[in-house]
């Protein structure tokens, strides 16, 4: 909470990601990824290194089940074309780049799908851009098949900012929660769909 905001509700203004309301399975997977070195952030690895899975799962459940209001980021200074590109990628994808729509896996409301696909809203653009960049550089990984590594590598550089800013601009209703299941079969297979 020192970094991720009161009760984990960091806003899109900073860098540290919001954790409140993300699917618990996702939060647990990431805690483990920090421990085994698939993600690199020394402060996180240091925190989880010598904790049991049972405790990490408990932490993930606690933060994942919080339902707290979201903030949006003012994007009036961002070029309309860039935001439009972000919207297109999120809702339709880019067939030419073989990039599926974000919505097809992260849920119609973009708040994730239980148990382990993360929500994409309420995050700072810097964080989203940073994570996509980390996937392209292979410094952020997930269990194989690492679908996000493939998708991030196909994006054009300017798409990262387009996604980060459009996602941060989205208003989230107060009762927002991750979807219980995929609405249709996801277009890609991911090792991190489950815990």
């Amino acid at each position, binding site marked *: *909470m*020192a*970094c991720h905001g009161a009760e984990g509700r960091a806003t899109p203004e900073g860098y540290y990601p919001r954790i409140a309301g993300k699917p618990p399975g996702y939060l647990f997977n990431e805690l483990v990824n920090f*421990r*085994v*070195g*698939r993600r690199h952030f*020394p*402060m996180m*690895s*240091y*925190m989880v*290194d*010598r*904790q*049991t899975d*049972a*405790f990490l799962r*408990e932490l993930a459940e606690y933060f994942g089940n919080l339902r707290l209001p979201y903030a949006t980021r003012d994007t009036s200074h961002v070029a309309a074309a860039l935001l439009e590109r972000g919207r297109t990628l999120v809702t339709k994808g880019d067939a030419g780049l073989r990039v599926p729509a974000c919505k097809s896996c992260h849920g119609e409301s973009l708040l994730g799908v239980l148990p382990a696909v993360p929500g994409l809203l309420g995050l700072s653009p810097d964080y989203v851009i940073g994570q996509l960049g980390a996937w392209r550089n292979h410094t952020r990984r997930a269990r194989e098949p690492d679908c996000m590594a493939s998708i991030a590598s196909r994006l054009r550089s300017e798409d990262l900012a387009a996604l980060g800013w459009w996602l941060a601009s989205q208003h989230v209703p107060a009762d927002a929660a991750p979807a219980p299941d995929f609405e249709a079969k996801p277009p890609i297979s991911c090792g991190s769909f489950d815990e």
Partner: protein
Amino acid sequence: MRTRLALAALAVLVLALLVFLFVGPKDRTEGEAPPPSVSLGATAIERGRALVTLADCRPCHTARGGADFAGGRAITTPFGIFYSPNITPDPQTGIGTWTSDDFWHALHNGYSRDGRPLYPTFPYTNYTKISRRDAQDMYEYLRTIAPVRKPSREHELRFPYDRTVALMLWRRLFFRPGVYQPDPAHSSKWNRGAYLVEGLAHCSACHEARNSLGAIRSERNPAGGLVLNWYAPSLARSHEAGLQTWPEQQIVEFLATGRTADAAGMGPMAEVIYESLQHVPPSELDAMAAYLKSIPGASEARPLVTSRATDPAVLASGREIYGKNCARCHGDDGRGKPPAALALAGNRAVTMPSVTNPVRIVLYGGYPPGTAGNPRPFGMPPFADRLTNVEIAEVLTYVRSAWGNRAGAVSANDVLRNRTGPEW
């Protein structure tokens, strides 16, 4: 004639050096370990597993996310970076072709199978006290680990530490092989504890001070040691981590769970507890506690404080920072909110002469290990991103001099030196 004399003198010198380097004093290779009060296992492999756990081999010989015992963990020292080798039974890259004699030679004498002397980062300076029979059991257990094909990485050492002759000289100066010799003046429990603390569990590898050549200065050296980026407090000083006044049961509680009412194991000690000590039979911890208690505590007669913080502006600023960031958990009176937040008033971890650990805990947070006895440990959040070096120095200076604490000031440079990241 003169040249010939000089040459002869040089030859004698070289010979003397060689004799000094290679002919050591008498070694003790025989003898049984003081027996544990409960069986560590019915088979050699079971006993070996328990002994390998006590010796804490796995965490050093395992890289983050890597296969158990397959090596590759980097250990940063003032002499360079050491990479732990693969000790799985893989014949090409591990120790699959090692005989039991080879393994003993490494543990007891500090030599690799190919005859190369090993660096004391591998604590054979302690393991030499292990009995031949225990070493055999450890060997049997290590044979059962899944073999992993992973070449060991060469150490990256600075000159002259990368020279074999330097290592040989070091060994000759500071290493005496010898199995633990029981002290008949003490009980079998105490002797078992001494065997574990000085040998298998290699506590002194961290808790005793090292000289500039990386050798432990003396037996029961009271100074504590700066290792793995942390300060391992002295077990022979009651104002550091000496256990002379702790009840045995409290020592066992700390070693088994990582927490007592007013102390928590953090940093490298959290790793030792998580990986090793929490899995050790209670009777073995009892024995260690009995021995640890008996280590003589250094006299407190000398003044401990060299520079009492007296600058009122620093203290006022530190007090304000404390009120904003610390008081909610640790209390305005520094008495903490047990069990969540430890008391800072009278807390040795806060007031000991070295400021390294308090600085690191404020920077990177403090996380006791999750153990069976303390499965949901309370942690302290990191402040590296929220407070500047000056602010951390001021708040620690305040904490070290408030509520009856009488320790020296912390400088912004002390904080800066530790901004290298939380890991070791």
